[in-house]
């Protein structure tokens, strides 16, 4: 089976490397990269606008173009998060936490380099999984019902609560606050409006883009506006040497294992439709922090933090294609659009997809890899350009970024209400930053709450109100065990810390 897969892959490369296909793939990743760098500017909107262009193209060129935009945007979004603390895509929020401090220390280029590498590894492994394990992945995905989703996401919530760099209680508080914000909107089960205060624009809930860009982007600007001369911390115009822009071998070694772990976590969330890269990125970050010998470094420039979350985002994005292509079930909005594009060409994704259209499937898989290579080639020289742009005085950077944020947010739904939401959250973000409350756990709570709640209630409907369903189903029970174990480990850790403090105090008093 592996033999045939590899043979097919070879055939796929043959298709993907045809000059016209190559050109469209490049066009796609280039635009995607550009769109990704601009905050809020939707990948979705871009693909919709370019959709008419695909009518004239062959099916494979069309898919290469659209898919290229999608994962190209992921690469671009990392740039903004690292250099400006602006998560251009919510799955890069976690990258901001540890990569931005590196930029402030003048090591932005190194952070970018590490990100490129871990993204590439993540994407490549994701592609390998697509090649070898598609059918396994699909069979597994069908086993995941609401009970399993709930237990997995509950574990995610718990894991996320460990990620705050300051006082853990503050982190938990922010996460719960985020969950409360997630409640706003329409309740799926009963159709009731919750906390919309009569504003119809809130009936679908608070927009994630508005929340993320407001809290991080605008909040950050409000905080730094009079205090920062230049992001890099050194005087503007200082010449950054080429050597300082690339990661050293030591840096790469630090990033290695986190990248691998992140990739695996991302792949898991990739094949579960409806979860997506955002929870995956948070959980990889939390996992790294838990596994690290020096968790205090996180939040101040720990490479493991963003290496693993970027790898997870990219592997998740690649694996996301599997349920879309083989089950015809889009994992998220962009996939739905890709599905429409394929349908228009007369190609129906589904269980027969791989056998009925091998050139498209394997050509696509091959082109994913080629597209990622193109992105690396595009982005590495750009690192120098971005770093030089950063040395511009802050008073030029932040108005432009603000401008793009407003346009980007507005374009999601052509709505000024969204821009207002963003500004309000900007002020909220400033208050939190001033009081030293971290924003990242808030976003995790916000993203996970609707999923956790929806799945819990749906599982209860299916089981007719029987709570035992969560332990009766094996996969769900497994995740619940992991949650309990994690709680136990946390409690033991805290108890040990408390005991140490008590004995330290005791010996201090004895010594007096």
């Amino acid at each position: 089976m592996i033999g045939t897969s590899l043979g097919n892959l070879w055939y796929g490369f043959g298709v993907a490397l045809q000059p016209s296909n190559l050109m469209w793939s490049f066009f796609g990743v280039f635009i995607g990269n550009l769109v990704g760098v601009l905050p809020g500017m939707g990948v979705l909107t871009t693909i919709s606008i370019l959709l008419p262009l695909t009518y004239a193209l062959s099916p494979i060129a069309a898919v290469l173009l659209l898919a290229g935009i999608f994962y190209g945007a992921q690469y671009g979004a990392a740039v903004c998060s690292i250099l400006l603390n602006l998560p251009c895509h919510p799955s890069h929020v976690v990258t901001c936490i540890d990569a931005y401090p590196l930029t402030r220390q003048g090591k932005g280029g190194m952070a970018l380099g590490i990100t490129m590498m871990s993204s590439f590894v993540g994407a490549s492994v994701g592609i390998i999984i697509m090649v070898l394990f598609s059918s396994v992945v699909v069979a597994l995905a069908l086993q995941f019902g609401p009970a399993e989703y709930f237990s997995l996401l509950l574990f995610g919530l718990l894991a996320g609560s460990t990620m705050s760099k300051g006082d853990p209680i503050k982190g938990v508080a922010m996460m719960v606050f985020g969950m409360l914000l997630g409640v706003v909107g329409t309740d799926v089960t009963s159709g009731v409006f919750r906390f919309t205060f009569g504003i119809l624009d809130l009936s679908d809930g608070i927009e994630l883009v508005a929340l993320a860009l407001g809290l991080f982007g605008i909040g950050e600007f409000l905080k730094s506006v009079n205090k920062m001369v230049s992001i890099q911390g050194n005087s503007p115009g200082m010449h950054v040497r080429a050597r300082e822009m690339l990661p050293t071998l030591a840096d790469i070694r630090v990033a290695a294992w986190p990248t691998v772990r992140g990739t695996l976590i991302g792949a898991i969330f990739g094949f579960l439709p409806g979860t997506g890269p955002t929870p995956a990125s948070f959980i990889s970050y939390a996992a790294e922090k838990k596994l690290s010998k020096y968790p205090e470094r996180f939040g101040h420039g720990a490479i493991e933090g963003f290496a693993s979350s970027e790898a997870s985002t990219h592997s998740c994005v690649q694996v996301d294609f599997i349920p879309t292509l083989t089950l015809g079930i889009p994992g998220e909005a962009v996939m739905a659009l890709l599905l429409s594009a394929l349908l228009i060409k007369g190609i129906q994704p589904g269980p027969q997809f791989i056998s009925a259209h091998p050139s498209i499937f394997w050509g696509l898989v091959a082109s994913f890899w080629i597209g990622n290579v193109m992105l690396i080639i595009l982005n590495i020289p750009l690192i120098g350009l971005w770093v030089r742009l950063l040395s511009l005085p802050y008073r030029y950077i932040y108005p432009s970024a603000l401008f793009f944020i407003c346009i980007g947010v507005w374009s999601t739904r052509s709505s000024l209400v969204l821009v207002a939401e963003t500004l309000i959250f900007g002020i909220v973000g400033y208050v939190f930053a001033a009081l030293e409350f971290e924003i990242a756990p808030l976003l995790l709570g916000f993203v996970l709450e609707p999923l956790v709640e929806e799945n819990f209630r749906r599982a209860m409907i299916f089981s007719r109100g029987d709570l035992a369903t969560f332990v009766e189903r094996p996969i769900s029970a497994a995740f619940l065990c992991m949650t309990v174990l994690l709680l136990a480990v946390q409690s033991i850790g805290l108890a040990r810390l408390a005991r140490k403090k008590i004995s330290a105090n005791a010996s201090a008093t004895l010594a007096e």
Partner: protein
Amino acid sequence: MAMRPVRLLAFVILVLLAASAAYADTYPSRPIKLIVPATPGSATDVIGRFLTERIAKPLDATFFVENVGGAFGSLATQQLAKSAPDGYTLSIGTNSTHGANVFLYKDVTYDNYKDFSPVARLTRNPTILIVRPGIPAKTLAEFIQYAKANPGKLTYGVGNSAGLANAHLLMMMTGLQATQVDYKSPPAAVVDLLGGRLDFMYLDPALVVVHIKAGTLRPLGVTSTTRIKSLPDIPAIAETLPGYELIGWTAVFAPAGTPPEIVAKLNKAIVDVINGPDGNDYLKKLGMEPFPSTPGELGTYVKEQTAKWGDILTKAGVERQ
């Protein structure tokens, strides 16, 4: 010397007047906005963009699409109702925006019929009643029997107003009882159907045609009175339950008071595209059928549909939010 500037001025004014007369005469003279009541990428959005691309040339116009998603399209439709009736703002309406929404949301204060000028109907979208293969029923009649023998034990999925209304219509016409499971959107429910957790659901052909062909999901009937041409083996539900008909549809609307000549011009261009071989083909691939009409026919249809959906939703006990 003093005359020449005055003559020049007079000449310029005359030219401008002539130009503005010409400006007023030819529609369209500036870009036309099409509001799509859904996020980019949804079926409604795809149709909207396809349409604007195809009618641009015959109308000698440029179009741009604005996506205003949210509240099942109510936000978009409210925006249209408030726009100027000069033919430069149009929107796509569906059975949700101009049918069901007025019964689902208290804030929807527009009148489906009075506040809009119907332009042209676009598509009809029958849905398919799907059951998971594990259910021991091969035809609709068998299924109704099985469901009535197990009241409340079966679960059905609902992802939008069409799924909701269809399920309630079925239950009202047959007396069977089942438990409702809600989803944010239909695709999420397909996983539960395939995984054997959900029992039946009304779904768009585009979502399920591959599974029907592969045998992983079983179709029992279509909600239109005639069979779908691309899936002729699926009987219409009306063949077993006479009088059953509830289909989704899309159409183009303009604000009330738009001049009839502009409406007629738009209607002709749209109907030509829908009836043309390209349009036909395109829509069929998305699982929809062309359903063109004159503006007047669309108006009557909206009145009918509003009454029909309203009837079902009120009888189903759905409360306005």
